[in-house]
């Protein structure tokens, strides 16, 4: 077997740009029907993704990336994750995130119109999801 066949070709793309592309050992994806792991030579699957962290394992190191809204597509060529939004959890600063959550909570309280309140609530939920994904 060639060395590449031991690796899973994984690419993570968001509308703005390609965030990751390359060979990895395995990826765990939060599918809409439950988390599932993808290893090399996985059978073709196409699934929607629920907001959550995907974990990318390569040579004993783990990278966790929070994604929101998108699809995972497994073909014989590898795994493609189309994410509406992706944030590298390793890059996040917990203190800063906590501050942002506090700000968002204030925004929800101070919102003058219903529309603004909804937007602020959405932002708050997103930040809280990020925070809980970090703790896992």
């Amino acid at each position: 077997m060639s060395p590449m066949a031991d690796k899973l070709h994984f690419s993570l793309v968001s509308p703005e740009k390609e965030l990751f592309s390359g060979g990895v050992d395995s990826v765990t994806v939060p599918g809409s029907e439950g988390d599932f792991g993808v290893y090399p030579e996985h059978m073709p699957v196409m699934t929607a993704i629920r907001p959550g962290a995907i974990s990318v394992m390569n040579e004993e190191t783990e990278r966790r990336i929070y994604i929101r809204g998108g699809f995972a597509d497994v073909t014989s060529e590898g795994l493609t994750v189309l994410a509406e939004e992706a944030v590298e959890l390793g890059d996040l600063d917990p203190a800063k995130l906590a501050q942002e959550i506090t700000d968002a909570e204030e925004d929800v309280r101070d919102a003058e119109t219903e529309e603004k309140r909804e937007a602020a609530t959405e932002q708050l939920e997103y930040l809280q999801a990020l925070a809980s994904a970090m703790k896992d």
Partner: protein
Amino acid sequence: MASLKEFRNRIDSVKSTQKITKAMQMVAAAKLRRAQEAVENARPYAARMSNVVASLSHSMVDQPGAPTLLVGTGESKTHLVVVASADRGLCGGFNGAIARKAKDLISGLIRDGKDVKILCVGVKAFEQIKRLYGSRIIDVISLRDHKYINSGHAAEISAKILEMFEAGEFDVCTLIFSQFKNVMSQVPTTQTLIPAIEGISESGELPDLGGACYTYEPDEEEILKVLLPRNLTTQVFQALLENVAGEMGAKMTAMDNATRNAGEVIEQLTLQYNRKRQSMITTELIEIIAGAEAI
């Protein structure tokens, strides 16, 4: 005959115009680099998305209950034409080419007896189309105030299109934008957005599954329900980015030409100015000599 002072004024005014066009060219060049990067960064997502849609729709298209976004309403009576152009002028024939393409398409549709509705994204094509088809334009969206276009803007536009589609206001949706080939050439292109299946047969390719069958989670219908609107957004987003890059490319070329033209005009005016000055000196000299001889 113009006096020397008038010549000097004209040369000065052309010079300041040249300075402006030169500056605009440099600004366009800087923006072009950014826009080009954005287009290239967005391409993988769009390409993958269209592959996914292609493979999904391949298995869905002949089944009853396939979403209307994919296979259409079964009619093609009312057409929505989305015309995406730039919001600013001074970029050569860029907006004109888009407007011309749009007019051709619209007049063809009308000749075939279809109802046509027009949604303009960007005011420049709107200004040209409204003279002919003003009553058919339902809305104009301007992105002028946004410095950079992100997928949020595209999402707003596609949400509007979807809302109208769900209200049954049109059967077929076509997008006109300018494809960015390179700095010198932008090709006005039409793309069918709804029904999506037509756009797919135009561009998408089927992935090689190596004989295996796809498993869908939850099922095809559910995924398509989420995927198709998103695909619409992606296509709109891609078109907007291509447009920005094309606009900047066209502007750069146009301003480069203008700068060069101004240079030529200055050269000519300077030549005329010098001739005039010399002839005046000669006349003065002749007068002095003639006066001296008379004494």
